[in-house]
């Protein structure tokens, strides 16, 4: 769990759970919102990582 990817996924899951719960009131909406935030965080970080790797 102490790999960069593992910690990033754990962090993204926690943040997504809080924002999903905070921003929506019904369960299905909360799950959908959390899923979207989780995907955006993980894909965004992965994409940015690759961009920095290629650019620098």
């Amino acid at each position, binding site marked *: 769990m102490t790999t960069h990817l593992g910690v990033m996924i754990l*962090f993204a899951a926690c943040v997504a*759970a809080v924002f999903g719960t905070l921003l929506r009131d019904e369960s299905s909406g909360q799950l959908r919102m959390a899923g979207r935030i989780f995907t955006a965080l993980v894909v965004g970080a992965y994409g940015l990582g690759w961009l920095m790797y290629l650019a620098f």
Partner: protein
Amino acid sequence: MAQPSKPVSPSAASAAGTVRPADPTITVLAAWLMPGAGHLLVGQWRKGVIFLVVLTGMFLIGLAFGGRLFPFQLAEPLVFLAAAAEWALGLPRLLAAMIGGGRGNVVSVTYEYGNTFLIVSGLLNLLIMLDASDIARGRKGR
């Protein structure tokens, strides 16, 4: 003559729209002391439990990763801000300091991750406190 009110379960009362408005100051104080406690007070049990589990979990993960509980140092603005963010999680931060946790293992590979978890858990609790305050003040639906 006023009759004593019968105790009503928060979920049933919330469904009927009869939850007594919680005192905003007490709600914010409770939300600061314990993540999710503000939402529990205003009758949003499910949200309160999720916040309690996730934020306390993040804080414990931060400590387990060797993160540091920063002191208030005015000479170091970033350390000061980190300390303020960590103190946004009242009781967990206090208890961790009392049992001597959070000394910060700088040589640990997860040290910075630990700091991130500790700081972000506090910042997220600030948002949750604001949300609980809005609900208690009637600015947001229960």
